[in-house]
């Protein structure tokens, strides 16, 4: 369980997963922030105001899946590196996962990297399809990797 070992279980993840109908429409964010902590940069990061906190800053973020465009601007703003964007409409059988990456080296587009799951276990080799790393992101690169569709909620880190 998350609070014992840092690994989010599938049951713990369910409430923050987008509904299937939304996944079929293209990229969407998953905010894996499951604890009431005093933090809110994701709220102001969202250009469509899709992220809300009902009870104020110490509440968990709530994502309006219909309003989320999957743009990913919230990813590098999260101090917990807990926001991912998944795209199930990539190519047949394949999906993409976009995540924060704050380790050197920063991979390049087209590079093959090792995908890791929530426990740091090697899942396999995946291809980097996009790297966004402008000065405004202040050294938190957003890396998108192409993954088998059934691994989209399992792969959460890369080793370059």
């Amino acid at each position: 369980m998350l609070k014992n070992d840092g690994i989010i279980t599938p049951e713990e993840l369910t409430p923050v997963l987008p509904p299937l109908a939304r996944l079929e429409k293209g990229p969407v964010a998953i905010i894996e922030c499951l604890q009431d902590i005093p933090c809110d940069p994701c709220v102001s990061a969202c250009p469509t105001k899709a992220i809300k906190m009902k009870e104020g800053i110490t509440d968990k973020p709530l994502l309006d899946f219909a309003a989320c465009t999957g743009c990913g601007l919230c990813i590098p703003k999260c101090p917990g590196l807990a926001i991912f964007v998944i795209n199930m409409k990539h190519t047949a059988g394949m999906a993409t996962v976009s995540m924060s990456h704050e380790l050197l080296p920063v991979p390049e587009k087209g590079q093959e990297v090792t995908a890791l799951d929530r426990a740091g276990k090697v899942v396999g080799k995946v291809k980097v399809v996009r790297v966004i790393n402008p000065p405004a992101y202040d050294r938190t690169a957003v890396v998108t990797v192409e993954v088998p569709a059934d691994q989209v909620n399992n792969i959460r880190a890369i080793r370059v």
Partner: protein
Amino acid sequence: MSRNTEVFVIGGGPAGLSAAHVAAKLGAKTLLVDDSARVGGQLIKQTHRFFGSSNRDAGIRGITIADKLQQDISEVADRLTVLENTAAVGFYHNKEAGILSQNAYERVTYQAAIVCTGATENSLTFENNDLPGIYGAGGVQTLMNVHGIKPGQKILMVGSGNIGLIVSYQLIQAGVEVVGLVEGMPTIGGYLVHASKIRRLGVPIHTSHTILKALGTEGVEGAVLCRVDEKFQPVPNTEFEIKCDCICLAVGLTPLIDLFQQAQCRMVHVGELGGLVPLHDSSMRTTNPDIFVAGDASGIEEATTAILAGRIAGARAYETIHGKSADADAIVAEAREELRTLRSGSTGERIRWGRERVLKEAGEC
């Protein structure tokens, strides 16, 4: 030699810098001393993005917040003197204190003092805990993030509070292998997102475990860990060895309070705040009416709340000398509201409880 100032701020961390900035901005002649080579306190070691409200520095790296605070104080340089490499060494009667820089001792005469001395690191008792290669987490951060020196190649982290989790992450960023994290409690103490960050990079988190001893003769070669029961007693036959060349202790902080005791401030023991703290009211004034406190010295918390408490102390210290001010009131009201929000919710429960106890003792609630 002697110096004369209106407000005397001891400690140039987030609390002290904010207190000095506010006091000087409102119009008080202010002197700030810090015993390190560069002001900024622990912020200069913080490479991670801060939590908190985006109205105030959340999402920004700690080191950038230190730069911002330094920029703030440079704007009031005509009223604020900053002495680095200078330690406050004692309070005397008649609003006098002693400061010691490289080789010179000076007396400071002040009208109000704000003590922001921060905290010291706790240690842990286990066999061989004096071997070379066993560090406090603050020491590891200083080596790694201030001086660019890796403390070792394979490190074991003890303690799962935010400091243990964040320093583990910084070690991974620096290219050090974190072989595991040990926590006596059954659950992770810090923010779970920080725990997930290191877990998915392969760091095993051993909750309900403790370190029994460090292995090695000339330096650390490994550690023996074991499970603990609900009373934190080792469970027999659960020992296992882990190889490492370095052990990092992140087992809490204790407020640094010597100066308050010297100034005869009344102290109160509040476990939730890290131990003995000077009794203070909501203006951050201690029982010695000329002495204020802010930051970890008033109870262990974190940088954003230290900044806010520093602003309150700076504003009230100014008023002690120059009388009531609407500007000071506005700063205090704003900071109090932000503190209230940041300390709300379940993660702020212990702090709220501890703070309430201090105010109750001070007769405020």
